[in-house]
């Protein structure tokens, strides 16, 4: 029998190792795995690399993980936003490394890892500082740079509904990075607002099939 439901947040994040690369979903305030991030603070893993679109806001969620000094490096497209105070303090103090990656390249690099591919050539960033040091290649008259796959040890996800197989549905723009990150990590953990019986989710509505999900924990809204 397949049952990916776990009893609580501590069990959900158990076993995350020091030095792990964590894919952390969400965009702005939507689809953020805040409870899982805070559970990782309790769990204790350190020296982490975090991949996320934004670098946390306020003091909770990803900002709590940053604020606890657990993150050595963040791979991010847009770290500074309204309320990103914890990141800004760490950055100003030189206590966090920032690797800035264009937003669509972060997600495509993760998709590439999920699909078992060795990289892709992209026109994004050609002629800019972010292309420096990358292999350039002209294909059919257009210049591209080589982008390598980006794989996570762990993905922290937020979804609307899950069943015990780990099938996930999302609400509106809270979908964002969740489906790609779910596919791109060895251990994918989802906090979900609702857990439903197997068979209740319309197969046409399932965005992330359970094959990509390892643990599901109920965190009501």
């Amino acid at each position, binding site marked *: 029998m397949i049952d990916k439901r776990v009893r609580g947040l501590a069990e959900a994040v158990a076993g995350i190792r020091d030095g792990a690369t964590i894919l952390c979903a969400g*965009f*702005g*305030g*939507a*689809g953020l795995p805040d409870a899982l991030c805070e559970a990782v603070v309790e769990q204790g893993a350190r020296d982490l690399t975090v991949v996320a*679109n934004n670098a946390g806001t306020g003091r909770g969620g990803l900002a709590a993980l940053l604020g606890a000094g657990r993150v050595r490096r963040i791979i991010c*497209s*847009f*770290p*500074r*936003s*309204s309320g990103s105070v914890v*990141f*800004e303090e760490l*950055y*100003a103090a030189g206590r966090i490394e*920032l690797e*800035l*990656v*264009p*937003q*669509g*390249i972060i*997600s*495509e690099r*993760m*998709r590439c890892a999920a699909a078992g591919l060795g990289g892709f050539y*992209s*026109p*994004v*960033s*050609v*002629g*800019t*500082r*972010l292309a420096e040091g990358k292999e350039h290649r002209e294909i059919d008259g257009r210049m591209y740079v080589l982008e390598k796959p980006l794989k996570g040890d762990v993905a922290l996800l937020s979804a609307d509904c899950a069943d015990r197989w780990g099938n996930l549905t*999302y*609400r*509106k*723009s*809270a*979908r*964002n*990075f*969740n*489906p*790609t990150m779910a596919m791109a990590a060895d251990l994918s953990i989802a906090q979900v607002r609702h857990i439903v019986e197997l068979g209740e989710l319309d197969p046409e509505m399932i*965005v992330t099939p359970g094959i990509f999900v390892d643990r599901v924990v109920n965190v009501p809204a």
Partner: protein
Amino acid sequence: MPLKRRQIAWRAAQDLADGAYVNLGIGLPTMVSDFIPADREIVLHSENGVLGVGPAPGDNEVDWDLINAGKQPITLVTGGSYVHHTDSFLMIRGGHLDLALLGAFEVSERGDLANWTTDDPAFPPGVGGAMDLAVGAKEIRVLVEHTTKAGAPRIRRNCQYPLTAAAVVRRIYTDLAVIDVTPDGLFVREIVEDIDLPALQAKTEAALRPAPNLRPLRAPPV
């Protein structure tokens, strides 16, 4: 009178073609959604996976699962849909969007765009989706105030700030003018009524020439 920011957005909205799929960048371009001409169906794309962005919600209708690239609450139009991030950027990079309206720090006379970092050490840089949009949409137009608050020109021979993409901008809407970027240089299509071309040139580093049908730039109070 220079246009106000909302009037720049109004002016850019007048040029949107019926049926176009359009991405609005954060800041000034986001205001364009308030001025879509009523006789046209325009599908607005938001990089975080929304196709068919609708007007801002009423106070009782805010749903924080439904936001735009600027992280503000939005609504979805009838016929709209949601996709995940990778597909959203496939739309962007793969040439599926007809137009992206973007903000800028600077634009060069060749259409180089600089809008992601000023290299100010006090502010960590943020690129977001700007580089994907700048090379991916079929056409790029920029909305920008003609000069900085200190009066420095934002339309330059060469950008002083690091580039987002080279030679991508085709049209610039400012508070003073509408300017086309062509292989032959910058052509002023419209100019506000109380300044003339020499006065506009004085606020612009790159060389300007009048388009053959140079017209006054007017916008209603909005």
